[in-house]
Every structure is written in structure tokens, then in C-alpha cells.
């Protein structure tokens, strides 16, 4: 115990004046209260987990469109992010009037497509992500996340073309 025995001061002149024995025990309850308060304060103000981040490299803006190499239809896959968390994809180029398939952000949706042998076995397969103006930011992050999860290396964020919008409208009908 935090307690010190004091030796009684005996002696001295002029009779027996005994100092009262007093223990030096102190009540530590307020001290504990204070310490607990401080702990609580610091625990609540500390930011424990730093936010996660996703690195994204955008393709360089090319000034001269002639310098770009055309993508072969067999190596192209396009994912269109639509309104209300809709998601469509097609293989090939928009000119060839490909079949548009509706998919979803769920784990059995677009992820399975990206993991399918059609995408995985083709090293040159380039995935183009085309968000519509009506899609929201979460969709973009979700699809980038899917690409990351499926370890798809070749992908690009591309602005949506009129032909893509028309395809969706014709085949899905909204």
C-alpha cells in the first residue's frame, strides 16, 4: 500500500509532545476519475484507421488522334455504367452492333464476366469503362474495385459515345 509509516517525533524539550500518528494514505479516486476521463477523450478523438485509397492512372491525353492505335474488335470489352446502378457490357466494338448484356455490381454479376475465360485467357483484352452522365460516383469506384479484384490489368476510363448510348437504348430500352 502506498502508505508510509511516520515515525513519531519523540523527544525534544519540554514534556512529551507526541505528534499524532497519521497515515499518509491518499484517496486516489479523483485521480482515477481524471485519468479515465482523459483516456476517454483521447480515445474518441484519435483517428485510428486511416482512409483507404485507390490509385488510378488515367491515360495520357493524346493531342493527335492519329497517333492512337485502333483497338481490335476481338480485344475489346466495354462496360457501360447506367443510371440507377444499372450496368451493361458488351464485347467488340459499337459499330458491329454487338449484343448488350445487362449485369450487376454483385459478386455474381460483372465479376464473373471479368473472370470468365473470354477475358482472362486473352492478354490483350482491354476493358473500357464508360460511365453515363446519369451514373453516380459510387458506380465508378465499384467498377474500378471489381477490376482490381479480378486483377484485370488493361482497362481505361473512356467517355461514353453516342453510339453506346444508342445501343443501350435500342436493346435495353431506357
Amino acid at each position, binding site marked *: 500500500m502506498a502508505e508510509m509509516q511516520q515515525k513519531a517525533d519523540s523527544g525534544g524539550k519540554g514534556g512529551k509532545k507526541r505528534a499524532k500518528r497519521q497515515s499518509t494514505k491518499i484517496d*486516489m479516486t479523483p485521480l482515477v476519475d481524471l485519468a479515465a476521463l*482523459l483516456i476517454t477523450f483521447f480515445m474518441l*478523438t484519435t483517428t485510428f484507421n486511416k482512409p*483507404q485509397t485507390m490509385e488510378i492512372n488515367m491515360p495520357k491525353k493524346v493531342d493527335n488522334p492519329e497517333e492512337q492505335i485502333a483497338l481490335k474488335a476481338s480485344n475489346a470489352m466495354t462496360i457501360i455504367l447506367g443510371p440507377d446502378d444499372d450496368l451493361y457490357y458488351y464485347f467488340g466494338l459499337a459499330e458491329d452492333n454487338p449484343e448488350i448484356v445487362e449485369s450487376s455490381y454483385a459478386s455474381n454479376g460483372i465479376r464473373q464476366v471479368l473472370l470468365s475465360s473470354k477475358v482472362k485467357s486473352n492478354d490483350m483484352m482491354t476493358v473500357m469503362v464508360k460511365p453515363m452522365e446519369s451514373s453516380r*460516383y459510387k458506380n465508378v*469506384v465499384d467498377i474500378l474495385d471489381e477490376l482490381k479484384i479480378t486483377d484485370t490489368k488493361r482497362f481505361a476510363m473512356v467517355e461514353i459515345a453516342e453510339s453506346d448510348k444508342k445501343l443501350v437504348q435500342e436493346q435495353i430500352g431506357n
Partner: protein
Amino acid sequence: MPKVKVKRTAPSLDMTPMVDLFFLLVTFFMLTATARPDEAVIVDTPSSASEIKIPDTNVITITVDKNDRVFFGVDGQQTKEALLDRIAKNYNIGFTEEERKTFSLLSNFGVPINQLKGYLAMESNDRKEVNQPGIPVDSARNELGDWVLQTRLTNPKVVIAIKGDQDVSYPTVKRVMDILQEKKVDRFNLITDMEMKPTN
């Protein structure tokens, strides 16, 4: 038969170890704590399975909130003071020493440059209440591009992070990305929440 006398003792317990432990914890938290900076807006970031952490220092945070307003923030007091000097020179606005000091303590802000002086003159409580219009990003008054460019000139090491709300419409984010690309920034970070990585 003699009566057994129960010795009465006060139920006091020794709190010394407890106090020791508590102060140890207090010290730990005090040393590790970085106070949460008060943000101008609260955004609900989307989640991702990414496991990269954002660096502690030299980060420009461009916050895009639900109402498509853009906020700009950078860390480092010296950086911010130097940044404000550069902006002041470009836009021919003089800032007083006090305004520079206030600016260097802001974590982020979303006012056009011509309203910045008024914003800095406010009391810190009023500053929280006031409705900030966001930094202009349209092509006629592309102030965000200037802020980013001048920050990079001030501190070349900065990393750019975009912190967007889940429900922000894509064109706003696209506009911010385009501005960054105009300023030759092709690599940036999107701040997200944590999500468990799928196990398949």
C-alpha cells in the same frame, strides 16, 4: 465459549496499479493522437477492397460533396502559407499576416478566390456555419486548376486524392479529373472506405 470477533476493516482497495495503468494509457493516447481535423463538409465515401493507405503528409484532398460542391484542402502550414502567397500574386489580392495565419490553419475550404478574404475574416465558429458555395470548376473560372497547379509548384511532392460522396453524379467527378489531367496530373487517388476483400 469465547466469541470470535470479526475484525472490521474499511473496504478500501489499493488503487495505485490502476492509476499507473491509466496514466500509461493516457500517455500512449496523447502521444499517438492526431486530432481529427474539422472538415468543411462530411462526405460518405464509397467502399472498396483496396488496401493502400493514404500517406500522412503532402496530400491534396479534393472533396466533392453531395451537392456537387468542390472543396480544396492541403496539409502543411508552410505549404499553405506559400500557396496563398502565390495565389495572391496571381489574382492581385493582398492578404494580411493574420489572414495568412488563418488560412494556414484551415483543413479545407470551398469558396471562390474573390470571397476568400471575407471567409478568412470570419470568426472560426461562423466559418463552420456558413454555407460555402464550392470552388468554381467551370472552364471560364477554373480556380481549382490554379489551386492544384500552385500547390504542386509550392510542394512538388504532393499526392492528389479525390474524396467524393457516393451519390455525386459522375460528370462532376469527371470534371475534377479532367481539370487534373489538364494540369498534367494523370495519377491520383480515390479515397474510399474499407470493405472486406472477397475470398474467391
